[in-house]
C-alpha cells in the first residue's frame, strides 16, 4: 500500500509526470489528497442538505402541530405523513437522522475530511498524505456509510428513531419503537463503517503530521490549523473505537440475544429474556466518544478560524503558544468530562461532583482561545472577506453557546435543564453553528486553492449576514423555553396547557429557521456556479503566509513542481516591522539581522 505511494512520490522528485490519469483514477478512485478533500466536501454538502432539510420539516411540525403540509406529503410520503400530517414516529425519525447526519457526516467527516486532507500536506510541505491509498479507502468507506445511512431512510419500518444518542433499550427493541427494526440495524452498520473510515483518516493525518513536514517546519512552526487537525485526529483515535465497541455490543444485544445493556424488561405484554445488563453502561461508552466528539467537531473549526482571523487581520495570531497549550488542554480534558451528560442518569452522585469539576475546568482553555481571538482583532487591519466574517461569527456563537455551558456543566443546575430546549440551544450554538461557520470560513478561504476560482463575495456577504441573524433568531429564544422546563424531542406541546405560552416562540423560531435554511441556497448556487464561472484566482489571493499558497494554482500530483519549499519562519509574520509587505511567507529566508519577535 505504502509502497505504491512511495513510488508515486519519488516520481515527482525526479520530475516525471508521464503517467496518464483516466477519468476514474482522477475523479473517482483518486489517491490525490486534494481530490479526496473535494470528494469529502461534495459528499458533506449533499448530506448537509439532507440534514438541514430535515430540521426544516420538523420545525414546521413544532410551529404548527399536526397541520397538514404539502411538503410533508412530498418528502415523507403517505406512510410517514398520512394526509400531509407528520406522524409522531416520523418526527422522532427526523430528529434522530438530523442529529446523526449533522454531527457525524457533516461536521465530523466532511469538516475534518475536507480540510485535513487539503491542508495537512499543503501547509506542511508534503507531496501527499503518508498513505494515499489508505486515504482513498477512508473516503470510500465514508461514502459507503453515507449510502447506507441514506438507504435506511427508505426502509419499511422507518429509519432509526431513538434519538442520535441511540440509548438502549429503546434502540435495541423493535417492540419499543418501529424505527428500532431494520432502520436501526442499518444505522449501526453505517456507523461501524463510518468509524473505520474515520480511524483510517485520523491515523493518516497523525502519521503525515509527524513524519512528512518539510525542512524547517518544526512543530512550533506549524500553522494552528495543522495543530487543530493533528490533535483532533489524536482524540478521534482515542475515542472512536469506544463507540465502535458500544455499537458492536448493541448489535449483539439486538441480534444475538446477549444482555450487555438490557435487563428486566416487560414490553408489549411479555417479559423479555434479558438479565444483568445496564443501559447506563451504554451511556458511559457512548459519551466517552460523544463528548470528545464535540471537540473533534469544534477544534478543526477553531483551527480554520485561527488561520483566517490572523490572515485577514494582517496580524500574528495572538498567543500562538497559548493557543497550542489550550488545544492540548482541551484535548486532555475532553476525555474526562463525558459524565456531565449523565448527571441524572442514575450513576453515583459522587461521580457527578467529579465531572462537574473537570467540566468547568474546560472553560478555562476555551476562555483563553476566545480572548486570544478578540485580541488578534485589536489594532488589526481587518480585511472583512466572507471567510473573515464567518470566523468572527464563530467567535461570537462560540462565546454565546459556551457561556451556557457553565450552567449545564454544573450538576446542581443541570437537574432542572437537563434534556430541555436549553440544552438544544446550548449545543447548537457552541458546536453546531460554530462548527458550520468554521466550515464556511474554510470553504470561502480555501475555495481558490481547491477550484482555482474565487467565490462571489457579494453572495458570500448575503449568505453570512442572513445566516448570522437567523442563527441567533433560532437558538437564542430556545434558551428561555428551555429554562421554562420544555423538554426536547416532544412531537408537540399541545398536551400541556402549561406550555401553551411557547407556541408563539416556536413560530418565530421556525420562521427564522426557514429563512436561514433557504439562504443556504445562495451558498450552494455560489459554490457550484463558481466552480465553472467564478473569477480565476491569483496564486495568493489573501496574501497569506502559509505554504499552500506557494503551490501552483493548477493542481498537480506532488503539489510543487521541482523542490518542496523550505521553511524559515513561523506562519504568522504579518505586518512585521522591517518588511515592506504586510506579509512574509514561511518560505522567505530571514533577512540578515532580522529578529524573531514572537515567543
Amino acid at each position: 500500500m505504502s509502497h505504491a505511494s512511495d513510488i508515486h512520490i519519488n516520481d515527482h522528485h525526479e520530475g516525471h509526470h508521464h503517467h496518464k490519469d483516466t477519468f476514474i483514477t482522477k475523479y473517482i478512485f483518486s489517491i490525490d489528497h486534494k481530490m479526496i478533500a473535494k470528494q469529502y466536501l461534495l459528499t458533506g454538502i449533499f448530506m448537509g442538505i439532507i440534514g438541514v432539510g430535515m430540521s426544516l420539516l420538523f420545525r414546521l411540525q413544532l410551529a404548527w402541530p399536526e397541520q397538514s403540509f404539502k411538503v410533508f406529503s412530498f418528502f415523507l410520503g403517505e406512510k410517514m405523513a398520512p394526509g400531509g400530517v407528520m406522524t409522531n414516529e416520523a418526527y422522532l425519525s427526523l430528529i434522530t437522522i438530523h442529529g446523526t447526519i449533522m454531527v457525524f457526516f457533516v461536521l465530523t467527516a466532511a469538516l475534518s475530511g475536507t480540510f485535513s486532507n487539503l491542508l495537512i500536506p499543503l501547509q506542511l510541505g508534503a507531496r501527499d498524505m503518508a498513505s494515499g491509498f489508505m486515504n482513498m479507502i477512508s473516503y470510500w468507506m465514508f461514502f459507503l456509510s453515507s449510502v447506507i445511512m441514506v438507504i435506511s431512510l427508505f426502509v419499511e419500518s422507518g429509519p432509526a428513531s431513538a434519538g442520535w444518542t441511540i440509548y438502549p433499550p429503546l434502540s435495541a427493541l423493535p417492540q419499543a419503537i418501529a424505527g428500532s427494526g431494520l432502520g436501526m440495524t442499518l444505522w449501526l452498520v453505517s456507523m461501524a463503517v463510518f468509524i473505520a473510515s474515520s480511524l483510517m483518516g485520523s491515523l493518516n493525518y497523525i502519521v503525515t503530521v509527524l513524519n512528512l513536514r518539510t525542512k524547517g517546519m518544526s512543530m512550533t512552526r506549524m500553522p494552528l490549523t495543522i495543530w487543530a487537525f493533528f490533535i483532533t485526529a489524536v482524540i478521534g483515535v482515542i475515542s472512536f473505537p469506544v463507540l465502535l465497541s458500544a455499537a458492536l455490543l448493541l448489535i449483539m444485544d439486538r441480534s444475538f440475544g446477549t444482555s450487555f445493556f438490557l435487563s428486566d424488561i416487560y414490553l408489549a405484554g411479555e417479559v423479555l429474556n434479558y438479565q444483568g445488563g445496564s443501559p447506563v453502561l451504554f451511556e458511559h461508552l457512548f459519551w466517552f466518544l460523544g463528548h470528545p466528539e464535540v471537540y473533534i467537531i469544534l477544534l478543526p473549526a477553531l483551527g480554520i478560524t485561527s488561520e483566517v482571523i490572523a490572515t485577514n487581520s494582517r496580524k500574528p495570531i495572538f498567543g500562538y503558544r497559548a493557543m497550542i497549550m489550550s488545544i492540548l488542554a482541551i484535548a486532555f480534558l475532553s476525555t474526562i468530562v463525558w459524565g456531565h451528560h449523565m448527571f441524572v442518569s442514575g450513576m453515583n452522585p459522587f461521580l457527578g461532583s467529579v465531572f462537574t469539576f473537570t467540566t468547568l475546568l474546560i472553560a478555562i482553555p476555551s476562555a483563553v482561545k476566545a480572548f486570544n481571538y478578540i485580541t488578534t482583532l485589536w489594532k488589526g487591519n481587518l480585511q472583512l472577506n466572507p471567510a473573515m466574517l464567518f470566523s468572527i461569527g464563530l467567535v461570537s456563537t462560540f462565546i454565546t453557546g459556551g457561556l451556557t455551558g457553565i450552567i449545564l456543566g454544573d450538576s446542581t443546575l443541570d437537574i432542572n435543564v437537563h434534556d430541555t430546549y436549553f440544552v438544544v440551544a446550548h449545543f447548537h450554538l457552541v458546536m453546531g453553528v460554530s462548527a458550520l461557520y468554521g466550515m464556511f470560513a474554510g470553504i470561502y478561504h480555501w475555495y481558490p486553492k481547491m477550484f482555482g476560482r474565487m467565490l462571489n463575495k457579494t453572495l458570500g456577504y448575503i449568505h453570512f449576514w442572513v445566516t448570522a441573524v437567523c442563527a441567533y433568531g433560532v437558538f437564542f429564544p430556545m434558551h428561555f423555553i428551555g429554562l421554562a422546563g420544555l423538554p426536547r424531542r416532544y412531537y408537540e406541546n399541545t398536551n400541556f396547557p402549561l406550555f401553551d405560552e411557547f407556541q408563539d416562540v416556536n413560530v418565530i423560531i421556525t420562521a427564522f429557521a426557514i429563512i436561514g435554511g433557504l439562504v443556504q441556497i445562495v451558498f450552494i448556487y455560489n459554490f457550484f456556479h463558481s466552480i465553472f464561472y467564478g473569477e480565476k484566482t491569483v496564486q495568493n489571493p489573501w496574501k497569506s503566509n502559509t505554504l499552500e499558497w506557494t503551490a501552483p494554482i493548477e493542481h498537480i500530483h506532488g503539489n510543487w513542481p521541482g523542490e518542496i519549499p523550505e521553511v524559515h519562519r513561523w506562519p504568522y509574520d504579518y505586518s512585521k516591522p522591517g518588511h515592506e509587505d504586510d506579509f512574509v511567507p514561511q518560505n522567505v529566508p530571514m533577512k540578515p539581522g532580522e529578529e524573531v519577535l514572537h515567543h
Partner: protein
Amino acid sequence: MTIILVLLVLVLLSVALWQLTKIFDLTQAGVAVKNSQVADDNDNKVNGYLLFGFLGFIYCIMITCVVKYGKFPLLSNPASVHGKEVDRLMWISLILIFTVQIITQALLHYFGYKYRGKKGQVATYFSDNNKLEFIWSSIPAIVLAVLIFFGLFAWNDIMFVNEKVEKPIVIEIYAQQFKWTARYSGADNVLGKANVRLIEGVNTLGLDLTDKNAQDDIVTDELHLPKGRRVVFKIRSQDVLHSMYMPHFRAQMNCVPGMVTQFSFIPSVTTAEMRETPEMIEKVEHINKIREERSKALVAEGKTALDPYTFDYLLLCNKICGASHYNMQMKVVVDTPEEYQKWLATKTTLVKAVKEAKADQDNPKEGEAVTATTDSLSTKKDTTIVAQASSK
C-alpha cells in the same frame, strides 16, 4: 400545486441571483480585473458597520427575550425546599454569563468595526503577552472555582440524603410506555419487593404479593405529596429509559430498567397555595387568554373548544421513550399533611385489589364471566394497545 409553486419560486430565485451576479460582474468590468472577489475598502467599510449593527442586533434579541420571555423560566416559585438553593445558583450563573456575554460580544464586534481595513492602515505586530494570558486564564479559574464550590455543596445536599436520620416517606415512581404509576409504601414505609417477571393482571407493577412489606403498598395513578415532609422517590422502569422530570420541584432522575434510581426532596408549597400566588395567577390568565383565542378558531372549524386551564404540578417524561413520549405525564398534587393522609386512606392496597380481581374471576356472576376474562387480558396487553393507539 404548492410544491410546484415553491419549486418555481426557487428556480426564479436562482435565476434572479444569477442575474444579480451578472450585473455585479458587469459593474466590475473595466475596474480592477484581478482579485475583484477580495474585500476592498468599500466592503470593509460596509461590513464593519454591519458588524457594529450586528452587536446591536444581539443586544436587541437578548433584551427582547429577557423582557418578553423572561417570565417563562421557572426561576421564581420553586415548590421544593432545595429549589430555592438551585434557583439562587441559577440566578448567579445567569447574571454572570449575561455580563460576560455583553462585554465580550461588545469587544469582538466593536473591534471588527473599529479596525476595519483601510488602504495604508498598518496592523500592529503584537504576537503575545504572558501577563494578559495569565489574567484571562486566572480570572475564569477563580470565578469557576467559586461556582464549583457552591454548586457542589448544593449537589451534595440534594443527592445525599441520610434516610435513617430524616425518615422520608418512601414512594415508588414506576415508568412504562407511556404512563406513570406511583406506589406508596404504606404504614411500614417500606416498599415491597417487585420484579417485572411478576407482572400479572391487576398487578401491573410486578409486586411480590407474598412479601410482608408489600401487604400495605398502595398503587395510584396520581401523585400526592404532603407539604413539608421529605419524600424519597425510588424509581423503576419496566421497558425503556424514561426520565422523571418535575420542573416545578427542580427535580429530575432517569428511570432505568433493571435498576432502582432515586431522588428526594421536600415539597414546600401546596397546589392550592401555588394557585394563589400572583405570578401563577398572571401566568394562568395569560395561558387561558391564549387558549380562548385558539378555542374560537377551533369552534369556527366545527371542533370542540379547549378546556380552561387550572394550574397543577406535573411529572413529565424527559427522556425519549417511544412514539408517544410527548404525552407521558402524571398529575402531581401537594396537599397539607392532613389532606394527604385523608387521600391516602381512601385508596385500597394492591394486595386487596388483586384478591378482589381474583374473587371476581373465580365466582363469576352470570353473564359477567366473559367480561372478566377480557378485562384481565386487556390489562395484560395494555401497553401494546396504548402504543398502537398513539402511533398514528
